[in-house]
């Protein structure tokens, strides 16, 4: 943050964005948490790839992996990952519902209706995945 001497003789004060800008309001905080959630989802995907590799290595390797994942620190990590995944999904559905301009006849569908449709689709898709897992 400094005053800048310009060739035209003016001397404006130029401010840098403070590191804590995202703490100024709830929406900034949610945005940064949503961006941060990408890190935890990436960790989950890496663990998933490792899990597949262990599965391919044989029953002993997979059982060892499952034992490791059953320990409290790994369970705690998965709880954190679940929290960020849900946070990302909820805030993303709420945000993206603002983008499309959908009309039914003369009426424009509200953001509330579109986000509700997003949540219904999310629940249906999750239920479909769970039913496939339970059926196998």
């Amino acid at each position, binding site marked *: *943050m400094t*005053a*800048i001497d310009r060739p035209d003789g*003016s*001397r*404006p*004060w*130029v*401010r840098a*964005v403070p590191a804590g*800008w*995202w703490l*100024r*309001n709830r*929406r*900034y905080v949610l*945005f940064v948490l949503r*961006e941060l959630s990408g890190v935890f989802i990436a960790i989950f995907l890496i663990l998933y790839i490792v899990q597949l590799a262990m599965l391919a290595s044989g029953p002993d390797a997979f059982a060892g992996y499952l034992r490791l994942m059953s320990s409290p620190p790994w369970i705690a990590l998965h709880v954190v990952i679940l929290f960020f995944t849900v946070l990302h999904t909820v805030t993303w559905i709420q*945000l*993206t519902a*603002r*983008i499309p*301009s959908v009309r039914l006849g003369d009426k424009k569908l509200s953001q509330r209706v579109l986000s509700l449709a997003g949540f219904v689709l999310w629940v249906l898709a999750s239920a479909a995945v769970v039913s496939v897992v339970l059926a196998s």
Partner: protein
Amino acid sequence: MQRQVRLKVQRYHPERDGRPHTQVYQAPTGEGMMVLDALTFIKEEVDPTLALRWSCRMGICGSCGMMVNGRATLTCQALLARYPDEIEVAPLDNFPVIRDLVVDLADFMEKLPAVKAWLIREEEKPPVEGEYLQTPAQREAYADHAACINCMLCYAACPVYGLEPSFLGPAAIALAHRYNLDSRDQGEEERRPEVGAEEGVWSCTFVGECSEVCPKGVHPAEAIQREKVRNAIHWAQSTLAPWMKR
């Protein structure tokens, strides 16, 4: 007894001050009084050296945008009755401060013409042939984005613009989108080099605060995301099926 408010106003005199400082003023409140009224009271009755911009007092000119208690606000629309007894007033974030509450808007003034926010026709017809007609439904298509008053609240609220000043920014893209949606316009391809650039829509991370602070309901965040979709479709079409012209 008439309620008084304490206004903690950020002051900066470029010829005297090394950095801004806060000056505290008292101002009376009354029914229907806005933050701008308190500031003009200070300027007229207490301290004529206070510099601020304002003009219409009715949310049309877009001149009186400031940070009020940390939020980008059009001060002529900010009812004092809705604020606590102590109010912090500062110049708009993300812009150089010329003096006190006056910021330098030169960056936006360069960006606005770059997006060509006006009707572009491939061939202009002579005025004697009349107007370019439009149905109410065609007007409705861009009505949401047509009310921008260039107040710059969206730029002050946008952390991306604060961190990356090369970003074209919310208002400029919303205005470009408004014309891209206009049935009379044929200029989308002329705007694409600016709007579809890295510093255009793709710099936006969809924080969404620009739409929250907009006093006219222009929804810049939504306009930017819609422009991302339009540009992505254009890219896919021109890459995968270049023989198909939109």
